[in-house]
């Protein structure tokens, strides 16, 4: 790792620790450094220890890698992937609390071609993780449609409002084709 890499990594993580809105750091990295800098971060790839679920894409591909923003379940995420923050795609990092309320997305699993309903629960009570900022907004809706809005800080109630990261839990198979918004209306 060059001195420049270390400096960029340090700056990015410093910002990550202080950010209060999901998404700040990742976009900073994207804008200033380019996506190429993210792999330089000392990402804790704990999720790598987990075997892929049956019928999930190969882990060696971005669509099957829970530490990649291209992971198929992250299609509607806007925040830090818990799998890069000490948790897994379905569990929160140590010391955080999983939000009871959440938004959902509908993501297509390229391994079986089916659409799945994914629950994006926020991990709360510690500051923003800073790793793996994923800013995909497929199916995202405005705040007045809360069940589909990834702009809402879902850390609310007993867990407090401090946002750390987000898990993506498959909760069902979508029975209808997902719709698109903002198309050529």
């Amino acid at each position, binding site marked *: 790792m060059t001195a420049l890499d270390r400096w960029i990594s340090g*700056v990015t993580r410093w*910002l990550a620790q*202080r*950010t*209060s*809105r*999901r*998404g*700040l750091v990742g*976009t*900073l990295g994207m*804008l*200033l450094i*380019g996506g190429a800098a993210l792999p330089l971060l000392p990402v804790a790839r704990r999720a790598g220890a987990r075997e892929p679920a049956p019928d999930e894409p190969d882990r060696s591909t971005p669509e099957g890698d829970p530490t990649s923003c291209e992971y198929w379940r992250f299609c509607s995420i*806007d925040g830090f992937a818990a799998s890069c923050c000490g948790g897994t795609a379905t569990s929160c990092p140590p010391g955080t609390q999983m939000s009871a*309320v959440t938004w959902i997305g509908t993501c297509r699993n390229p391994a079986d071609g089916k659409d799945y309903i994914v629950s994006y629960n926020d991990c709360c*009570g*510690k*500051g923003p993780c800073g790793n793996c900022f994923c*800013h*995909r*907004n*497929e*199916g*995202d*809706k*405005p*705040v*007045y*449609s*809360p069940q589909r809005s990834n*702009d*809402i*800080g*879902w*850390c*609310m*109630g007993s867990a*407090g*409002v*401090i*946002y750390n990261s987000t898990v993506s839990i498959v909760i069902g198979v979508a029975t209808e084709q997902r*719709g*698109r*918004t*903002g*198309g*050529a*209306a």
Partner: protein
Amino acid sequence: MTSAKRIPQFRLMTRGGVSLHSRIGRSSAVLVVCGCATLALAATRVADADVPIERIGEVEVLPSPFGPHWMWVSDALLERIALVDLDSGAFLGQINAGYGVPVALFSPDRAEIYLPETHHSRRTRGIRTDVATIYDAASLSPVDEVILPPKRAVNPLPVGNSALSDDQRFLAVFNMTPATSLGVVDLEERRFAGEIPTPGCSLVYGVGDRRFAMLCGDGSLLSVTLDEAGRVRQSQRSAPFFDPELDPVTEKGVRWGDSWIFVSFAGWAHVIDFSSGEPSFESPWSLISAEDRARSWRIGGAQHLALHEPTGRLYAAVHQGGPDTHKEGGTEVWVYDIAARERVGRIELRNPGVTVMGMSLAFGRDWAWPFDGLYDFLLDHVAPAFPIEHIAVTQDEEPILATASSFSASLAVYDALSGEFLRRVVTGNMTVQALQPSPFRGLVAAGVGALP
């Protein structure tokens, strides 16, 4: 100006004298005093010749009225709102806030700024306190506060989380637990007036003297009218005016006189007129022509709309992209004559400038030509394009368009009428989450602060 300048100017001398006297003998003290006097005399002679003796403890207050080109710039990292002058580039002051994206409300008539805030007693944990803090607009010091139920919605929106009634009597705060409601603050009596459940409806926009509007999940609009005590006098829900599934409007509406303008993901402008009390929905019109739509032009950004009231011009950040890019920043700003419903200008956006840790990376301004323009050349032609997520326009007769990318603390500033690029202004922020033009009429300097 003078009220802020109460200075304990002799404190240092008094404390030092007592301390010396108690530690050393009287004769030694005399020597020390004589020595000090000699030194002071010498220092005074030098000072008389150069710089007058100055007072310690001076604190500025802002002049009144504010400058027409002042802009408030929110930062979620530093949890503050910075005030900068877009003409001179000067940093003028700041207001600190709590967790989330701070967005202030400005009273047009009172020299006060209102800021809903969320705090935890142990910063990331502990007891949560939500509070509406009232700041003196001239001293930027807190003068009062009203404690709110700890239910304030947390999201990065630059508009819609709180609103002032037009008569400035009430402040409404959008709550989400996730049950939605409005918290109402009586700003004259400085008390929490109560909570109004608003099931199915979110966000809040001021639409009249005692009236607020909210957007509902079925595409309708809820109008809430308050009585003298801040309780609900009337609550009325309209028929749906947009399809929240197929083409939802963004939350980032702009006010135009008695109307609000919301724009859909696909670029349809919905104008809602509240002048008669009841909301009146005009037929939507498209910001994107069929030809531009075929070229994938779309609206997008975290604060993608701005409006210049005196000329009735609407400004929209646009980019070329696919579906679900409604939060992607703009590469151009398109300008519309709202009354004529037609586009009257295009402004190609330039890089707002690069900052790291709030500091500008600008260099070479004093180098010889042509190298003095190297930084600008690199920004405009070499650096990756910064999508512009935030735009705002000042409301004076010579309006300025300010543009920002969320992760640079530098703003690019344009003449809002001609579209001419003017300059870059560094805010000292880490990030930019909201731009708010400053009110520039009225605003008399008040009494510093009253809260500890």
